[in-house]
């Protein structure tokens, strides 16, 4: 059974370690915050200038001066800090953020990512995505394995304009967890009930399948 978006987020949350500083992109990545394991303390960074992002405010407590990079009203947690955009991307570039989770349109077997532009469509801009992918030491992509046309999003090479090159470390889709290795995508886990064959069939890039592939644990 393919994972729901919530389950993808839940699986990614297992990658969190105590003390991690984490940047979560818009979409599925944002949901990861709901599944932080018990007993683990994680600090969320929002690249518009905040460490220690908390949940959405209760109704009536929204503050226009306190938003996240998705422009949503949020709160701060005890121990939070505010800074300008240069310091925010400074700490990202300096590798101080332990984990970055992003959505993607395509990922290549070299770890290239495309997630900002579709030729022929209105281009809205890359926002902070290019800085994040070029700088972060540990990037996990959260995305569907195939696009709406059923075509694989895990490719030998990206067809869309790139956001960054050789930067993605891991991918979690609704059917698989994969690692980017020097030799291509390496299948680490499969969703409960999903066969290796299905994953092979939906992966256009080079896929390494070694030994028994375990089912994801939650």
């Amino acid at each position, binding site marked *: 059974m393919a994972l729901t978006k919530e389950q993808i987020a839940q699986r990614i949350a297992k990658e969190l370690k105590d003390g991690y500083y984490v940047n979560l992109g818009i979409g599925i990545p944002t949901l990861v915050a709901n599944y932080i394991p018990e007993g683990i303390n994680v600090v969320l960074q*929002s*690249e*518009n*200038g*905040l460490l220690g992002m908390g*949940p*959405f*405010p*209760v*109704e009536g*407590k*929204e*503050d*226009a*001066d*306190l*938003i*996240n*990079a*998705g*422009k*949503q*009203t*949020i709160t*701060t947690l005890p121990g939070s800090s*505010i*800074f*300008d*955009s*240069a310091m*925010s*991307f*400074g700490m*990202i*570039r300096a590798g101080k953020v332990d984990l970055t989770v992003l959505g993607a349109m395509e990922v290549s077997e070299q770890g*290239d990512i495309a997630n900002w532009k579709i030729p022929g469509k*209105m*281009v*809205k*801009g*890359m*926002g*902070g*995505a*290019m*800085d994040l992918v*070029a*700088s972060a030491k540990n990037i996990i992509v959260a995305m569907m394995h195939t696009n709406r046309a059923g075509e694989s999003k895990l490719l030998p090479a990206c067809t869309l*304009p*790139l*956001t*960054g*090159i*050789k930067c993605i470390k891991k991918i979690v889709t609704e059917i698989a967890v994969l690692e980017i290795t020097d030799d291509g995508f390496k299948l680490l886990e499969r969703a409960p009930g999903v066969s290796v064959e299905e994953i092979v069939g939906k992966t256009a890039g080079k896929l390494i399948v070694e030994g028994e592939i375990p089912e994801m644990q939650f």
Partner: protein
Amino acid sequence: MNKVYKNADAAVADINDGAVLMLGGFGLCGIPENSIAALVKKGPKNLTCISNNAGVDDFGIGLMLQQKQVKKMVSSYVGENAEFERQLLSGELEVELIPQGTLATRCMAAGYGMPAIFTPAGVGTEVAEGKESRVFNDKEYLLEYAFDADFAIVKAWKGDTDGNLIFKDTARNFNPLMAMAGKITIAEVDELVEPGELDPNTIHTPGIYVHRIFEGVNYEKRIEQRTVTKSAK
């Protein structure tokens, strides 16, 4: 020397056609609402606006777009704006998209007297086209130049009559960076106080960077994505 201006109209009075402006804010958060309104009223055209976003159709820089005052936007993200899209597709408007961290750091570079900086953002992408790149410690970086803006227009929370500024929460964003970067920096503030009322240790932008300051009025502070938790935890 008096830095205090009566209002936004007075502060932007010499911003004329063709000026290069920096405008602080992230989305609609921390934008110089009063100055934008004054610019719409005064009506300079052919402006280049360096700002992370382009506002929405009926607010922020979107208001200047509606008046066709903007020749070029330099931004990292320009969604949420139908008029922007129309002008862009019709060729009326030029847009230069820049990674957000690069945008921020190019402002800081100007304020710090650094002519250029190195960043890995955009390496291997179309952003790198035509740009010089260089490898340090086995990692490739692009050379990106400091911005050169005629005016920086920022919004702060508190300011004093010497031009010292303090920002509030994530309304800080690009504001202190742009404040450092303008040849002339205009700051509008929620609250203008006398020198000595702000703790020197809490100043985000020292007054040396700020040339004009005024207390703004009628801030709308519009929220783009009102997200709430139904019940308190």
